[in-house]
């Protein structure tokens, strides 16, 4: 199957970006201050955001069906207009909820692999395959060398950035997941395909940075399936981060996995922030991240993305303080566990609103000294 690398073979961590060394700590902390709103009410600042996807308004799904029907007369221009309207709506909803870094909810994206594969030469589509039950996706095949043609997300970012008054985060599917969730007909193995795709993701991140993006999140859910491949993901991230300025915040999102199998190795990844889902199993895996010391910013899931019940503010506050067992407040980001797109929209909004309210309340408690934060396991110095 995949190469039998282990952490010992890695060349990761020798780049000049945040790599788990002391220089990295400072960079992570400074890049997040840029997200503090001018009117932020508290001295402490816990960055609030979402992972990425968000429920689509019902009319957008109808528009998509129309767009798919060649006889409907609903053309590409109509579709672009529809997705723009939806993006504006969701950005507004995120800002209403009070999030510090917003996303457009990925309104123009259909699925996290398909969307990118349609834009990468070398990919072909042969039809849908089952995921579970009666849920399918159009799993693409790599039949030729993959290449970078035109930007994938720059238009989406430009639009979102224009309509948003808060800083924008850009989620982008990582190369390891793009490789794992495709049929590989061309490359020697999945690892080689992942590295080839990582070069393309690097070009895309550069294009996004040129367009003004300062917060990019690499989504690698496939790592949860095969955690022993963490060295491949690390190598991909080295390729992605190459040449990206230090003031650009790079996050990595992983979900629904056994984190003990990628920790502490992931501390060597050249990222500023590690985003994990932990609310789902009530922080059963929190201890994994306390030994050795967690040296990245922690983006902690504090509401469950797969239950429609809206967690009360008090419960979310308690979840946020779980994060303070791992990192200091200035290194803590809070978000839902995962993308919210499968929830009813009211539930998604309610969760975000309570998330923000709880974060502000925890900040207040910290300002007043009301919250007794045990210093996380600290380094010897």
């Amino acid at each position: 199957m995949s190469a039998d690398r282990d952490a010992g073979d890695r060349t990761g961590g020798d780049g000049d970006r945040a790599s788990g060394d002391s220089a990295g700590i400072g960079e992570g902390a400074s890049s997040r201050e840029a997200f503090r709103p001018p009117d932020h009410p508290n001295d402490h600042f816990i960055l609030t955001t979402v992972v990425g996807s968000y429920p689509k308004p019902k009319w957008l799904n109808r528009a998509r069906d129309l767009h798919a029907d060649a006889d409907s007369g609903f053309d590409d221009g109509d579709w672009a207009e529809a997705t723009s309207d939806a993006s504006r709506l969701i950005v507004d909803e995120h800002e209403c909820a009070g999030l510090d870094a917003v996303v457009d909810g990925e309104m123009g994206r259909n699925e996290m692999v398909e969307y990118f594969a349609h834009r990468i030469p070398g990919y072909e589509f042969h039809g849908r395959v089952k995921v579970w039950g009666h849920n399918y996706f159009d799993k693409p095949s790599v039949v030729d060398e993959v290449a970078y043609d035109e930007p994938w997300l720059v238009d989406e970012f430009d639009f979102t950035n224009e309509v948003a008054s808060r800083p924008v985060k850009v989620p982008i599917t990582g190369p390891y997941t793009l490789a794992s969730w495709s049929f590989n007909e061309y490359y020697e193995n999945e690892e080689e395909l992942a590295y080839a795709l990582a070069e393309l993701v690097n070009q895309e991140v550069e294009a996004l940075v040129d367009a003004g993006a300062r917060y990019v999140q690499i989504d690698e859910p496939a790592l949860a399936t095969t955690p022993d491949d963490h060295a491949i993901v690390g190598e991909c991230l080295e390729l992605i981060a190459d040449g990206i300025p230090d003031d650009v915040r790079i996050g990595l999102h992983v979900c629904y996995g056994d984190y003990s199998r990628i920790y502490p190795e992931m501390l060597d990844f050249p990222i500023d922030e590690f985003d994990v889902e932990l609310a789902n199993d009530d922080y059963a895996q929190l201890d994994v991240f306390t030994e050795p010391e967690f040296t990245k910013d922690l983006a902690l899931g504090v509401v469950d993305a797969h239950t429609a019940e809206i967690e009360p503010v008090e419960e979310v506050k308690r979840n946020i303080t779980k994060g303070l067992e791992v990192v200091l407040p200035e290194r803590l980001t809070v978000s839902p566990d995962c993308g919210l797109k499968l929830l009813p929209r009211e539930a998604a909004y309610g969760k975000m609103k309570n998330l923000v309210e709880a974060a502000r309340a925890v900040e207040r408690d910290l300002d007043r000294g009301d919250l007794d934060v045990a210093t996380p396991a600290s380094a010897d110095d």
Partner: protein
Amino acid sequence: MPTRARELQLNYFRASIGVANIKGGAGILRNLKGHQKSDLIDGAESPEISAVYDRARERVLTDQREAGLDRVVEGQLRWDDMLAHPLCIHDAVDTKGIVRYYDNNNFYREPVVEGDLDFDGDLAADLETAAEAVESESLQAVIPGPYSLSDLATDDYYGDEAAFIEGITDFLVGEVEAFPETETLFALEPSLVVNPPGDGADERASEAIGRVAEATDAEVVVHTYWGALSEKVHAHLLDAAIDAVGYDFVSDHEASLYNISEYGTKESVALGVVDGQNTLVEDPETITERVEWVEEKLPVQGFDRTYVTPNSELFYLPVAKYREKLAALAEAASPAEVSAA
């Protein structure tokens, strides 16, 4: 050199594929079934839903016959929970959350056995429908092997591992006894590779497999995949009263060959030489070369029967690609090839 009957055999392909791509099938099922956990096949589906599956079954039987396969399967189209299907629809089983199907990006409902696994008849009913359309000498039954089925499930009734696999085995024996006449029975046992049984459990797994095999007059092939069996598990499996072991020559051909070289195998063999999880369609020549490679490397005088088959289920593929794979398989294993060998 004895004549080898190189029979082409197609193992368990589910056409989630077939259903989704039969014109209108996907839309009909989406409306009839829905997308949630509770909407999966439960053994008590409506006549409207059954009719869609019946049409899809006819279609995949036609696909296989048109490709020219020697053995055809009913397609396991209703197996929403993949190999866990016979348990997930059983009255004595409660289904919990969605869990990952081996190392794939596929999920099934976790079956929790909460009572005695008595006779159900679901597998036999689907096979009966297929038997009405094809001759029994070309029909192949497909079941999850007892070890894999117990590995995919959780026991909340039998008490311990040994009692659980015994209960599952009793259940499978009853199901298989109700089958119409078939030429072959494929028992799929990926768990023997992926999550191999330890000391004692390996012996029990082989005994269980043997008991299921005794329940039918069909030739029984125990197919293993996603790698090669450990030496000990392989050795125990050869003790079972079965007709052939199936080996995955896509995932790990060297280790599979090693097992046969070191321990021998049954009189017949199944060679998984077509990749069931990649859209790259093998040339018939490539398939033939792979089969010949195995035969040349082995210090044996050939097998009574060689089943040439994909290494895994085919439901991972888009429907157009699975049809191409069938055509390549059929061409590779055509009689002309056999006589030329």
